[in-house]
């Protein structure tokens, strides 16, 4: 066991740091550091800059155009990007549909879709939740009826992050209405330009437009866009959720936010002294910092174990819960650190509102505890 980075890992860190500092556009960085939303072009620009350097798919194996990095390098990469204020690479293509296509897709699908994800040419979104199917995802009703070489898709998806920018959506649809909930689901890749698709914005309490409703009305989807077997989509969906949860921990970004919290607390004053030196407030910051320190090691432990067996496991649920609790605690402390100024509805207080989503999305933290009970504790 060795918790120190090797010389090669340190050199890699310097390389990433130099690249990010040299290539991240200032406008994008400003927005990230101030918690503002990026446009489609800004999101894609950064990904493209990385892709042109050969880093477009930092979590993929080499044979699919990825970097082939081990979990420690992935971690260093994410940490260095986050520390300087680079936006997080969107997970929908890289972390979600990409690994599904790699593992369960046909050779034709792999050739068609994977290079375009790695090269930041396609913007993907995720069509899982429905108005009546949140935590109970397997109850979903959006239907796909086979008609020759096509499926005809009808229904409604909701909470679709950045659907307003997306070229493609991957969807869970019901192909066998007679089967038991999990058994009749298939996994479809749908072109967002298809006739019959309508995107309607949902404005969240922070005033932002991140999520949308997506409506499907007699949308024709070629059968060749189905991943894997018909009615086996639930298996692929669960595989994908495991990848999503590992990524949600966000240790790198939380480290950056912790530094920001300390800066804010150093600039505010209480009883004529910097708030950062207030014993009660300092202890609250220390509590989160220690949890984050532990999560960093836990994440590396889990990722190393996953790399050894080549699949995410239920341990990812632990990372999701702890990671999101820390993100929320940091945003809460930042807002509180501002004191009465926290009342102004801008970056910090809006982010506090926005981050309430983290314990809800990706499988609510309560669902994660069900997964831990079932798969780790075997209850």
């Amino acid at each position, binding site marked *: *066991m*060795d*918790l*120190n*980075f*090797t010389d090669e*890992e340190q050199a890699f860190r310097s390389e990433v740091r130099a690249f990010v500092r040299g290539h991240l556009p200032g406008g994008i960085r400003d927005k990230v550091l101030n918690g503002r939303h990026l446009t489609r072009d800004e999101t894609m620009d950064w990904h493209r800059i990385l892709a042109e350097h050969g880093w477009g798919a930092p979590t993929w194996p080499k044979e699919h155009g990825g970097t082939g990095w081990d979990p*420690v390098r992935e971690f260093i990469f994410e940490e260095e990007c986050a520390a300087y204020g680079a936006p997080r690479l969107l997970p929908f293509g890289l972390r979600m549909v990409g690994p599904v296509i790699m593992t369960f897709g046909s050779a034709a699908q792999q050739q068609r879709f994977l290079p375009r994800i790695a090269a930041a040419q396609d913007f993907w979104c995720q069509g899982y939740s429905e108005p009546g199917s949140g935590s109970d995802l397997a109850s979903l009703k959006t239907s796909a009826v086979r008609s020759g070489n096509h499926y005809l898709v009808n229904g409604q998806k909701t909470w679709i992050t950045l659907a307003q920018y997306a070229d493609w959506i991957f969807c869970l649809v019901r192909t066998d209405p007679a089967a038991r909930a999990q058994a009749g689901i298939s996994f479809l890749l749908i072109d967002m330009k298809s006739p019959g698709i309508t995107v309607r914005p949902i404005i969240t309490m922070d005033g932002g437009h991140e999520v949308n409703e997506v409506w499907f009305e007699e949308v024709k989807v070629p059968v060749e866009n189905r991943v894997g077997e018909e009615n086996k989509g639930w298996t692929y969906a669960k595989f994908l959720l495991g990848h999503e949860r590992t990524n949600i921990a966000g240790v790198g970004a939380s480290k950056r936010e912790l530094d920001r919290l*300390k800066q804010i607390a150093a600039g505010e004053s209480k009883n004529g002294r910097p708030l*950062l*030196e207030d*014993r009660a407030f*300092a*202890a609250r*910051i*220390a*509590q989160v*910092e*220690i*949890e984050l*320190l*532990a*999560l960093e*090691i*836990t994440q*590396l*432990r889990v990722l*190393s*174990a996953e790399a050894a067996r080549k699949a995410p496991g239920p*341990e990812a649920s*632990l990372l999701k*819960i*702890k990671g999101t609790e820390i993100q929320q605690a940091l945003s809460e402390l930042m807002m509180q650190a501002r004191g009465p100024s926290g009342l102004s509805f801008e970056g910090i207080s809006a982010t506090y509102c926005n981050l309430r989503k983290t314990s809800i999305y990706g499988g609510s933290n*309560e669902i*994660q*505890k*069900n997964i*831990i*009970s079932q798969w*780790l*504790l*075997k*209850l």
Partner: protein
Amino acid sequence: MDFNFSKEQEQLGETIQRFVAREYSTERRKAILKSREGFSREVWAQLAELGLLALLIPEEHGGMGASALEVLLTMNAIGKALLLEPYLPSAILGTSLVRDLGSGEQKKAMLPALAAGELIVVPAHGEAGARYELERVATRATATADGFVLEGKKAVVLHATAANMLLVSARTAGAVNDRAGISLFVVPRDAAGLSLQEYPTLDSQRAADVTLHEVRVPRQNLLGPEGGAFEALSAAFDLGIAALCAEAVGALSASLDATVEYTRTRKQFGQPIGKFQVLQHRMADMLMHVEQARSMSYLAAMRCTDGDAAVRGRAVSAAKALVGQACRFVGQQSIQLHGGMGMTDELLISHHFRRLAAIELSLGDTEHHLEKFARGAQ
């Protein structure tokens, strides 16, 4: 970065786990608890045979020259089986102080005997009113023509009665909270003027308050430089904190396992209570505490021997603060989920609970280390 134990370390871990599983059944432990000394000399000798009392002793003195990771693996097993033997005070704290401060002659005299289990040496450092402040020492040592006279009181000295020697800290110079001026003395437990008031601890181990009245020790019993023991004490206690964290992880995961197993078999309302979601989520919370604590026990083990006292202190304080909270949460919830059975002395879970509570209060509690970490992190 690498999270794997070496082959040799894995083998050592398995050996210890097998040993405690074989030799330390709940029944055997109960008998040992009732014995006069409150621990087993036989088990102590077996620990010596396995080389476990020699982990921290350099090879040239008949030891293993092992790292903090071997200590971690040993303490995991000790925590799981709730060993009552004076491993932490003697094999870790006492031994590392002799190793780090002893003269060539002192080491030659004591280390091989410590390794063989013939000698038990424990620190007598803490004092009433000092809480967890390492530098607050009021006990005085006054130089005489051929040695020193010690005067003062030491509080909660673990396994003092069983020890052959106490390593007594006393001030040869400076004010009561100065780091400089603290010296360590090897004092035979039966020295004239030394008296013990023994009592059981929260976790059924033995401790004593020690009164030193005109205790005379020859100059050769000074351990380390006169007035310069603080750094070594601090290093030994940091190693001790890492060891405690590892012991806690063993006890924490044993508590969680026992609780999960109990809720699988205990039936109410016609089904195992482990089927109730409110209890499942509680156990998921317990698991998160255990895994975060495990991560921090690794960090503490890897950093507690760092040459930079600030790096060392920061890591062990972070670890102890987080592990302390895990001890409290997992300990309390283990009892809660066992219901009335959890309250009984009969079940091992209540003994785990008491050990976890004791660990939280030992070598700095959660509040102490959280504050220490916060001061260093600004």
